[in-house]
């Protein structure tokens, strides 16, 4: 699976391979049992020349340069399934996959689709290359008006970090509007950063652009510092993961909650307001960076079960074994590249699972997912009647 789609520059730093052992828990690479669990659980493992277990074997055999000559690592969607299942607790996602991508990015060996997203993130603060000035255009018409902190300059209880896709993607803007409706209904004193917000950088980091991540985090950190708020909420599991687990290491530390956690805390206030019945079999897709990585499994389900008429059903892969939508680790911006290699999309496999369980609605909690899964529905047989809704959309519908 060697492709001409990526320029192959052989200038990998000599210290790279030895540095893998020096990272956090890097010595555990030596304790790999070669049990193959990681390769088996990896959603694209069967399509990689070097699935994770074989990558580790290559590392230990001093043949890692062979791994780096293949496209293997660009099939990794950073879903964390390998790291979670590993009995030796080897940091496969953080310490091997992400580090290898970083080395390839440093050498300039980046698939062109990903390159555009990275360049856009650097220049415009969002991977789609949209105008930063239009970042808050989605709030037009919402009543009561959504506060943009740079304009109103007043302290708020909650800073809502909106994120890229809810800000710009027409489908996900609907989710953003639904969350605004719920926050307004609950009387939350909240504000957004609008044009000053930059992409959180988490997916860019997992795609190997550490320097870009740090630059974006520093930009966001400087903006956070300008305003007064008690906590940050976000509907984006990657923004949540970055703010919770990555930003503090570079000195940017605020209390942060995913929107499902924030709303679940207010379930007593919210539940009596959910009067509109949603009579449907609903299955919930655990986003990798909400569930597997950050352990938030119950709050999204609690919110769904609070909606009258909802019957919650579980897909074959659920909770910690959830199947990645394919958008992580740069997958969101490698769709053509991965399709060329795999002729399969993880989102389509997931839709098949939702169809198999007889669900009417696939509930999600990550802004990558409505467009990914709705596209996958078009490509999956017998999925025509399945509806994709973010949990906050279902809650907003139930508010009537």
């Amino acid at each position, binding site marked *: 699976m060697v492709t001409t789609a990526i320029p192959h520059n052989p200038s990998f730093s000599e210290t790279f391979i030895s540095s893998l052992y020096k990272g956090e828990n890097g010595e555990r690479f030596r304790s790999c049992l070669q049990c193959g669990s990681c390769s088996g659980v990896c959603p694209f493992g069967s399509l990689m020349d070097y699935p994770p277990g074989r990558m580790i074997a290559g590392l230990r055999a001093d043949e890692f340069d062979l791994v780096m000559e293949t496209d293997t690592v660009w099939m990794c969607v950073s879903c964390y399934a390998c790291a979670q299942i590993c009995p030796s607790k080897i940091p496969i996602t953080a310490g091997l996959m992400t580090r290898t991508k970083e080395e390839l*990015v*440093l050498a*300039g060996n980046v698939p062109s689709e990903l390159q555009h997203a990275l360049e856009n993130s650097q220049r415009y603060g969002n991977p789609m*290359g*949209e105008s930063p*000035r239009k970042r808050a255009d989605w709030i037009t018409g919402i009543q009561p008006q959504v506060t943009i902190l740079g304009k109103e300059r007043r302290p708020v209880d909650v800073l809502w970090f909106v994120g890229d896709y809810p800000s710009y993607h027409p489908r996900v803007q609907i989710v953003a509007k639904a969350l605004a409706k719920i926050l307004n209904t609950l009387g939350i004193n909240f504000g957004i950063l609008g044009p000053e917000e930059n992409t959180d950088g988490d997916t860019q980091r997992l795609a190997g*652009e*550490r*320097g870009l991540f740090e630059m974006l985090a520093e930009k966001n950190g400087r903006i956070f510092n300008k305003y007064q708020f008690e906590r940050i909420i976000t509907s984006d599991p990657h923004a949540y993961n970055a703010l919770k687990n990555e930003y503090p290491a570079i000195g940017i530390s605020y209390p942060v909650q995913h929107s499902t956690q924030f709303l679940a805390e207010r379930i007593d206030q919210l539940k009596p307001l959910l009067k509109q019945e949603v009579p449907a079999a609903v299955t919930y897709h655990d986003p990798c960076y909400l569930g597997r990585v950050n352990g938030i499994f119950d709050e999204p389900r609690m919110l769904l079960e609070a909606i009258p008429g909802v019957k919650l059903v579980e897909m074959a892969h659920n909770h910690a074994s959830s199947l990645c939508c394919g958008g992580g680790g740069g997958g969101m911006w490698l769709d053509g590249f991965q399709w060329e290699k795999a002729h399969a999309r993880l989102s389509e496999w997931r839709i098949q699972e939702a169809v198999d369980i007889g669900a009417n609605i696939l509930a999600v909690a990550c802004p990558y997912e409505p467009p990914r899964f709705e596209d996958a529905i078009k490509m999956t047989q017998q999925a025509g009647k399945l509806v994709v809704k973010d949990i906050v959309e279902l809650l907003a519908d139930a508010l009537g």
Partner: protein
Amino acid sequence: MNIIVPVKLVPDLVEELTIDASGTALDTAWLRMIINEFDDHAIEQAILIKERTGAHVTVLSTNVEGVDDLLFTAAAKGADRLIKLNGDFEGGVNNHALARAITDIVKGLQPDLVLTGVQAHNDLDGQIGPLLAGYLEMPYVGCVSGFTMNNGQVIARKEYPGGLLAEMAVRLPAVLGIQAAEQPPRYVAISKIRQIMKSTIIEEQAIATLDSEGGPTIGRMFKPEVSEYAIMIEGDINEICTKLIEVFKEAGVL
């Protein structure tokens, strides 16, 4: 091989363009500048030659907002020398003035090869290369999309419509207008650019006068106007779609 790459910044079309009160120029208040796409290819082509056969690459540009990022990025890709030209570029500068202004500077750098973007979207006249070649008394070939070098001459490749390719031999030193590099401009990691910013110096040179004689004078700048043959459908997506369906039905195509 000494390669000089003069490049320029052009308005970034991600932001909507507005015309200023004079009606002859863009309103610069919200204007963001970005490297001219063809110039980005010229830099890439220069770096490819450097990697392939060894060369010293100098990138030079006028000092407008964004120029430092442009130059540091070029250095992170492999450019050896960065030059920023100071002058009065506020009101924009046409290619006649620019070519005259940089001729002596380029000449002083004793180039074997000058690579520049074949054109830029903010003037679409493709004149910087030919004018510069004229002042430098060097041959010029434009719309180049790849070349090989052989015994002091360049074999430049041009693509013509209809699936035809031409190769032309050009004696060095020469000026080439780059349509496309042999590979798309590469990605350079931010950490590399940040490193370069700490270790690389941008030289500054002054341009005393700008003589725009010979260039066009802009009489009026305006956005496309509605003609009697065009219907501009307005409204939200649903309204637009509904009206569009009506239009198709009226036209008998639906």
